Structure formats: structure tokens, C-alpha cells
């Protein structure tokens, strides 16, 4: 599904990604771990297409299509979703209205008609129940005054609504207490299928107890320095990152 080959990326003159290789197939869950500043969030952001980052070498393909010239919204329309570490507050636009706009823009781009209001409501009800989100919450302004946990839960709610092919969850576990973490993990697990894939970006092993990865990669100084199965995460938890440098 997603192929990353020898990816180098800069912000300004500074090279942050220094040759990433990664291959993700449908149905897989990959965890990317690593110390602060190793380039984890940059990798997520570059896949989602943020224009401030410059890809200097290598390429990313999604289902054999080169993403290089695609704007962030076009990547979203092709099924890439990035759950933000720091979701942005949008006063005056409710969660519901925002999600509706996002869904219908994506449908429009894919040559589909707008989702009928009845179906939209049904879907909102289903997904909000899955993530144990109160209906009142959905009429609040997007992320405005939300607690850290509410913001993350709301990101996963949007993911559930948009049903992406590739979901990248950037530090979704930070700011979540254990109960909220379980709810979010449960949501992600329920949405997982043989047709989609998940990249989990995280500092800690904790999230991986609830969303079990097929592969774990360690990122250090802009490169993947080690890959392995889920047991690698436990090893990292015990030993830290220093032994890999």
C-alpha cells in the first residue's frame, strides 16, 4: 500500500529525514518509535503532504501512485489521514459541521454525491458511540477549549468518520489517561481491517499494549536504525534508546 524509498526531507536548510525506507501492506499496523527530535512527526507530516517540508530525494507512493505533486487535500482524498499531535482550534465551526464538510469534500473529489443527511446522522451516531463521545460534544466548536484527551478522541472520531486507507496517528496516546487510551485504542482496533493500514507514532510502549503492532521501527537521527516485531517495543521499554545509537 505505502512504499517509502530513500526519503530525504528538509525544513529550510536543515535535513531532518535522511533516507527512510518503509513498506506497509494493507492490513498491517506499524509502530514508529524513537527519541525526541528523531524525525517521527516530520515523517508523518511529509507523508500527509505539508508544503513547508521539502522532499529532496527519494519518493513516497500510495498504491503505486507517486504522491510528490499531490496537495495535502488530494492525499486525504486518496485515503491518507493524519491524526495530529496538536489539533488546531477552530472557533465557530462545530465538530459535526467540520466533519460533514471534510466528508463531503472528499466525496466530491472522488466523484461521489454528498452523503445524504440521514446517512450522515446515522454514521455520526455510530462512530460517536464507538468512541464514547457525548452528542453535546459534537456541537461544540472544533477543539476549542477541549482537554488534551478530548482533542485526541475527537481526532480518532474524525478518522472513524473519514474511513481512511492509511491512518497515521501521531502521538495519539500523549495526554490521554488510561481509560481514554483504552477507548481510543478500542476504536482504532474496531476500524482496522484487511483493507487499511495504521502507522502509530509514539514515544512509549503503553499504547502498543492496546493496539498491537505487526512491526516496530526505531527512528533515530532521520533514519530507521532497527526494525522488528512487537517484542522490540518491550525491549525498548526496558533498555531505552541509547543502545541503538
Amino acid at each position: 500500500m505505502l512504499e517509502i524509498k530513500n526519503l530525504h526531507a528538509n525544513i529550510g536548510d536543515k535535513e531532518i529525514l535522511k533516507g527512510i525506507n518503509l513498506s506497509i501492506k494493507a492490513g498491517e499496523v506499524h509502530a514508529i518509535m524513537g527519541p525526541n527530535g528523531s524525525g517521527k512527526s516530520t515523517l508523518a507530516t511529509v507523508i500527509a503532504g505539508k508544503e513547508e517540508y521539502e522532499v529532496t530525494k527519494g519518493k513516497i507512493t500510495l498504491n503505486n501512485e507517486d504522491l510528490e505533486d499531490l496537495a495535502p487535500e488530494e492525499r486525504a482524498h486518496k485515503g491518507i489521514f493524519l491524526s495530529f499531535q496538536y489539533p488546531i482550534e477552530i472557533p465557530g465551526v462545530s465538530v459535526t459541521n467540520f466533519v460533514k464538510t471534510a466528508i463531503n469534500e472528499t466525496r466530491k473529489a472522488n466523484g461521489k454525491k454528498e452523503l445524504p443527511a440521514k446517512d450522515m446522522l446515522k454514521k455520526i451516531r455510530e462512530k460517536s458511540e464507538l468512541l464514547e463521545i457525548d452528542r453535546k460534544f459534537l456541537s461544540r466548536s472544533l477543539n476549542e477549549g477541549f482537554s488534551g484527551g478530548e482533542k485526541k478522541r475527537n481526532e480518532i472520531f474524525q478518522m472513524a468518520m473519514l474511513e481512511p486507507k492509511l491512518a497515521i496517528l501521531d502521538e495519539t496516546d500523549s495526554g490521554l489517561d488510561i481509560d481514554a487510551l483504552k477507548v481510543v485504542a478500542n476504536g482504532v482496533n474496531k476500524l482496522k481491517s484487511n483493507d487499511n493500514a495504521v502507522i502509530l507514532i509514539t514515544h512509549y510502549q503503553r499504547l502498543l499494549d492496546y493496539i498491537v503492532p505487526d512491526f516496530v521501527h526505531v527512528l533515530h537521527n532521520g533514519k530507521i536504525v532497527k526494525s522488528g516485531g512487537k517484542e522490540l517495543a518491550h525491549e525498548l521499554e526496558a533498555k531505552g534508546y541509547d543502545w541503538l545509537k
Partner: protein
Amino acid sequence: MEHRITMDLKEKLVTSFLAFENNVSTDTESTIHDIRSKAFTYFEEHGFPTKKDEEWKYTPLKSVLKHDYTIFPKAETAIEFAAVKKYFLHEIDSYKIVFIDGVYSSFLSETTHDGFDICLMSSALKKPKYKMVIDHYFNKIASKKDSITSLNTAFSSEGAYIHIPKNIVLPKPIQIVHFSTGSEAQVMLQPRSLVIVDENSHVQIIERHQSLTDNVVFTNSVTEIFAEKRAIVDYYKIQNDKKTASLIDNTSVQQKQQSIVSVNTFSFGGNFTRNTLEFHQEGEYIDSILNGITIIGDKQLVDNHTLVNHNYPNCESHELYKGIYADKSVGVFNGKVIVKQAAQKTNAYQQNNNIIIDDGATINSKPQLEIFADDVKCSHGCTIGQLDEDAMFYLRSRGIPKKEAEALLLYAFANDALEKIKIPELKTRITRLIAKKLGVELGFEL
């Protein structure tokens, strides 16, 4: 070759003034006559302000003054309500004071004298029963050292007169609407209004200037608002006029102790708009609220000049102006806050946030804080920027295309200045206006 000699506007006003005075004043000894004459002398001596005047540095009047205006509008032109319904907040019941080309329209209005006066300045200035009130309030806070305000004072004869005696919560808002019909190619209008809200009373007012054709209109409006002890006044100015309309609005507010006055200015339209808004606090525990949203493009200009005078201790002022400027539009914000030595424990907040969409647009923002008391909390902030990159990326990563994402963020940017609107139907209306102005597809309930 034929030469047409057009008088310059000042000359024309000078000539018109004598005729005007003969027309309106039967009793030349009256105090009003005296006020008008003095004001006129001031205007005659000072003329229209130029760019050399500090307060008008970024607001050139030249394009407004170049027209050959008709000073005295014709008698009432009839308009059907259906034709202008959309300019009213018609979803709710309200009192209405409506003028067509400066002349009162009894047909479109809904005034009252039942328990309180919601009526006309012309009656208040003429009828003996209002004399005491007029002598006490009229022209007491409108600036006497501003030539344009003086010009309005000199010609003051018509506008809204609102006097709410004490202990009355007005059951419905008042709408003051000034229409111009284009019956003259170029017309100058000078409405003069007076609002007096006595102790414990509460009133909501919506004001609008609207031209119905593309003929040129220049409105020089002056309003004085008096809020007595514990009075609450919410004033909303909707400025969404045609691109051939120019407006100079001077609004002065005087507050007595524990009163709360908010003035909300929404500037979306017009060719040239200058809002001079002054608050004078004359008592303790007063709250003054100034909100503004400006969204303009083309070559439009909007200038918000505000002044808050903190004269007494324990008072607050909250000022928030937001501006979005596209194309070659020009914005000016000048926010002056004076905290006198006696005004200890003052809380004064001022915020002016602007977004420039196109390189050709400009904003001149100038906060001026003059603080003479030592135990006060005063803050001001001014930002001029573009849309936040991270926020843009967030929206686009959810599949929302660039243009729509921009519009949505601008909408969100303006949104918090809407929070203070207390009439829900008006809030919906303004929200829609903003969405329309920004091209946001609000295909959803508001």
C-alpha cells in the same frame, strides 16, 4: 467651450447653512440656534480634515469630498416594505425609526410615546415638552473640536430620538435604518441621533445605513448615547452598504456608575467608512465594551478610531477589533485608552487582530495607552498576519481544499468578536453575512 463651475463642498455647505438656519429656526434666541451657529463657525474655521491632521493621517477624505452633493434631500420618496424588508432584522418584532433620503418615513416606522419615547429628533428639537431633556443632553458629549462632527451639529435637524425613563427593560429591540434612494445623483446626509437610557433601564439598538441604488451617498452621522446608573445598552452597527456609499460615523457614549454599554461595529461594505467611537466613564463600576469586525476588499477603506476615557476607579473596558483585508483595501485602527489618575483599579483590555489576504492590502494599527494611575491592569495587543500554516495544513489534511480551508479559517478568526451579540437572530444574520462575504459554504446549520 462650456465651463461648469462646481463649488467646492465646503463653500457649498457655507452657503447652505444660512438657508438651513432660516428654515429650521423660528426662534433665533433658542439654545439650539446657538449650538448650531457655534458649531458652524468651528467648521467654517477648520474645514474638512486633511492628511496633515494626525487623526486622519491614513484616511484621505479627498475621494469622498470630490462630489457635487445635494445638501437638502427632497421630500419623502415612497418605498414598499417588501422592497427593503431584507435590510431589517424582520425575523423579530421591533420598534423602527426609518428615514428615506434623510426624511422620516412614517410608513416604514414603528415609533412610540407610550411610556417611553422612540421617535424623531426633529420633534424633540422643536416641541417644548422635550426642551428640558434636550437642554440637558443634546450636544453634551459630541466632540466640539472635530470639524466633521461640528458640521453635523450645525445641520442637525433629523435622526432618531430615544428616551427610556428609569426601570424599563425594553420588550424588543429598536432598529434605526437610513435608506437613500438615489433620487439625487449625489446626496449628503447628516443624521443626528440622541439616545438616553435612564437608571436600571435596558435597550438594544440596531443601526444601519443602506443605499438602494449605485448613486453616490455621503453620510455624516452623529449619535450621542447616555447610559445612566445601572443602565444597559447594546448597540449594533451594520455597515454593509454599496460600494458607492461613504460613511463617517461619530458615536459618543457617556456612562454613569454600574452601567454596561456595548457598541458592536460590523463593517463589510461601503466605499469609505470612518467610525469614531468615544466612551466617557463618569462613575464607578462601569463596563464599556467595544467590538468590531471588518471584512473588506477591492479599494474599500474602513477606519476605526476609538477612545475610552477612564475617569473613575473600579471600571473596565473590553475592546476587540478584528479585520480581514483583501485586494487593495485599507484598514485603520486607532485605539486610544486614557486612564486618569483617579481611575485606580481600572481593567482595560484592547486587542486588534488583522489578517492581510493580499499583498496590496494595508492596515495601519495604532494602540495609544495613556495611563496616569498606578494600580491598574491594562493590556493591549495588535497582530497583523497571514493565515496560520499549521491550521491550514490541519484543514487540508482532512480533505478540505485550500480555498475552502482559507475561508473557514477566516470565518473562525472573526468568530470570537460575534460572541457578544445578544440578539440570537442578529447573530445568525451577521454570521451568514460573514460566511457569504468570505465565500464559506455554510451548508450546515449555524
